[in-house]
């Protein structure tokens, strides 16, 4: 009796294990069959700040239209928010379950691992010729194009008109000294709770940092392509920020733990006197009924002639399950004027193809974006086509902000060391 019970128990267990193993096999088999197939998996970032402007409906619509226009093809769309997309994609790559098409912030790290198709393989010449020149260049690693630009934004200087009037500031600052002077007045007259918003928290440390460093002739790399994070100009920039904005209490008390979204929200609430921002601030400030002005970003002695431009990227994975032709079909279908204008308009971004860009500028609705469009051709970018940049950028996000509170030289030296190691690792 007892033996039978034991035998039954063991048999049940073996069966259960066997069954689950079968389940696993089934999944794997199905996936292999689809190789070279007609199901395209698209993973994209969510640019929306609320349900009303989420990116998912846009991609769903593109997918539906594509399926209707191309019988037999299927598109699976997964839209992931910005906080999680890097982690999720990393997991997808680590588990060998890559998407066919990915739209996110950077592409070069994936080139280093030889994961991506060349642009020429997955985009017809007609479509790729339409990509804006500067961006098409930035999509190349060592001369070969892997990244397809998706949208872009440029940065500009925002100020609160009402606060400026209360503080009696008549001239919009063009130099650092004038920024410090205006900030002092804003504080004395209690015109703005935060005279200058300096968000150096992890969200986008690398952006605010670069905008200030460029004002002093600094930056992340020299012309030869070597990292110069701890250059004397950069160290001097942070010394100036500490002495003129942080220590006198003319910005957030702890810039290194203040994120960009806080600064933007505070500006839209009328608490900030001035800051650097991108086009989404326009909509936020209008909703908050804040009267604002825009100007070129002040530099040490003169305003920046070329501002910071930020682009996001689309890429296609070699190991995706769909065939190369299917991917090509879908990308050509997606990169049309209408689609790109529609997406860029949703978030006040700038499209990165020639015809979409022209169409958007011609629309009087976008008159307030004029300055941003004008700045685009000369804008300077992060070194996005350096395969070590993604590591360097992540390191700057983690500790870069401390250069505004601790000894700038020490902080930047440490980052420089990490950047050099990262550059060595991908060589």
């Amino acid at each position, binding site marked *: 009796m007892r033996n039978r019970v034991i035998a039954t*128990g063991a048999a049940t267990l073996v069966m259960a294990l066997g069954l689950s193993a079968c389940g696993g096999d089934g999944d794997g088999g199905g996936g292999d069959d689809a190789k070279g197939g007609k199901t395209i998996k698209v993973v994209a970032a969510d640019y929306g700040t609320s349900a009303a402007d989420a990116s998912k409906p846009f991609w769903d619509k593109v997918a539906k239209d594509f399926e209707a226009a191309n019988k037999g093809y299927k598109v699976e769309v997964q839209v992931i928010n910005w906080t999680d997309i*890097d982690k999720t994609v990393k997991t997808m*790559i680590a588990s060998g379950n890559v998407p066919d098409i990915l739209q996110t912030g950077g592409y070069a790290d994936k080139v280093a691992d030889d994961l991506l198709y060349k642009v020429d393989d997955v985009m017809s010449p007609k479509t790729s010729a339409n990509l804006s020149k500067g961006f098409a260049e930035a999509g190349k690693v060592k001369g070969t194009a892997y990244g397809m630009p998706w949208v872009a934004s440029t940065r500009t200087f925002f100020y609160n008109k009402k606060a400026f009037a209360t503080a009696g500031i008549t001239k919009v600052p063009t130099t650092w000294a004038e920024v410090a002077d205006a900030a002092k007045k804003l504080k004395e007259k209690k015109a703005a709770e935060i005279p200058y918003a300096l968000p150096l928290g992890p969200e986008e440390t690398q952006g605010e940092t670069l905008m200030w460093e460029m004002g002093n002739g600094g930056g992340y790399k020299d012309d030869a392509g070597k990292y110069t994070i701890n250059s004397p100009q950069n160290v001097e920039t942070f010394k100036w920020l500490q002495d003129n904005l942080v220590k006198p209490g003319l910005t957030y*008390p*702890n810039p*290194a*733990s203040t994120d960009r979204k806080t600064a933007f929200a505070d500006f839209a609430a009328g608490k900030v006197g001035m800051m650097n921002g991108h086009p989404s601030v326009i909509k936020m400030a209008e909703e908050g009924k804040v009267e604002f002005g825009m100007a070129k970003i002040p530099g040490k002695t003169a305003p920046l002639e070329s501002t910071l431009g930020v682009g996001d990227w689309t890429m296609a994975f070699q190991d995706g399950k769909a065939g190369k032709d299917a991917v090509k079909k879908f990308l050509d279908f997606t990169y049309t004027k209408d689609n790109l204008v529609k997406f860029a308009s949703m978030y006040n971004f700038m499209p990165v193809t020639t015809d979409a860009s022209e169409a958007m500028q011609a629309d009087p609705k976008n008159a307030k974006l004029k300055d941003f469009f004008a700045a685009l051709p000369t804008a300077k970018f992060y070194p996005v086509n350096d395969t070590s940049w993604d590591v360097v950028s*992540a390191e700057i996000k*983690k500790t870069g902000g401390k250069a505004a509170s601790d000894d700038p030289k020490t902080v930047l030296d*440490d980052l420089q060391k990490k950047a050099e190691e990262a550059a060595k690792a991908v060589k």
Partner: protein
Amino acid sequence: MSLKAPPSPAETGGGRGGRAPRPVSRRSGLARLGPLPWIAPVILLILFVVVWPVVELVRTSFLNISISGKNRGSAGTDKYKKLFEETDLGAVLIWTVIWTVVVVALTMLISLALAQLFNQKFPGRTITRWALIAPWAASVLMTAIGFKWMLNQTAGVLNTLMMDLGFIDGPQDWLGKSSTAWPWMMAVAIFVSLPFTTYTLLAGLQTIPGEVYEASRIDGAGTWQTYRHITLPMLRPAFLIGVVINLINVFNSFPIIWAMTQGGPGYDTSTSMVFMYKLKETDIGESAAMSVVNFALVVVLVLIFLKVSRWNEED
């Protein structure tokens, strides 16, 4: 605890007449496994959810995994070298020790007092005992996020309260810098550790027989004397369990720090757990190496404690 297989019935009743030898040997083979078929699912589960991740963790710490998530092959001990060369590692480890010691020590002290209080008979005792469970029942992450907002510089009620009471002149950015963020995070960690610890000690107090107290009273012992020479020594097993479990919990504590400061600015408010998590953003192999070190640290920590407290002395 040792798992001794009960004498197998197949062994005693083996070779019953008239049976072919083969089925008998198979049967006795199964039976020889004793309770194994019954505990096998649990063992498999443990292998799957405990042992396998640890093996994977150690393996990963010797791998070179790129930031895009691709395995580039063996890294040897490079990731450990890189980890020990991190400029911030020293400070992180020191703060991990301070964090663990302060939180556990204060938790134990306050819990001793609370347990004593809840052991008294007073009206409403049941309700207050229930109320003590609240911080335990609420998700730690929720509690931490709650405190984060209460401490918010512009919108936080704690800032408003402290200003109204005249403790501070203007609203403070409590969580923005390490010198004020640490004490607040420690306070939250103690707050969420109190219920478990207090209940453990309360259970311990209730096992002390009343006769012992009666005897000491007859011998003329004072309150303090009774507490020091009777309550505390007899509470020792419960107290030690409380300390060991809290040590592990607090050392591994992640949600409080992550929700309140994300370990920042920089690594200023990171314990080694949070440091490990942040390393993951740039280098998974190095992060795994930190995990291995963490794992070793917590084992060493507990062993040292057990040794110092002479865990087995009373057994």
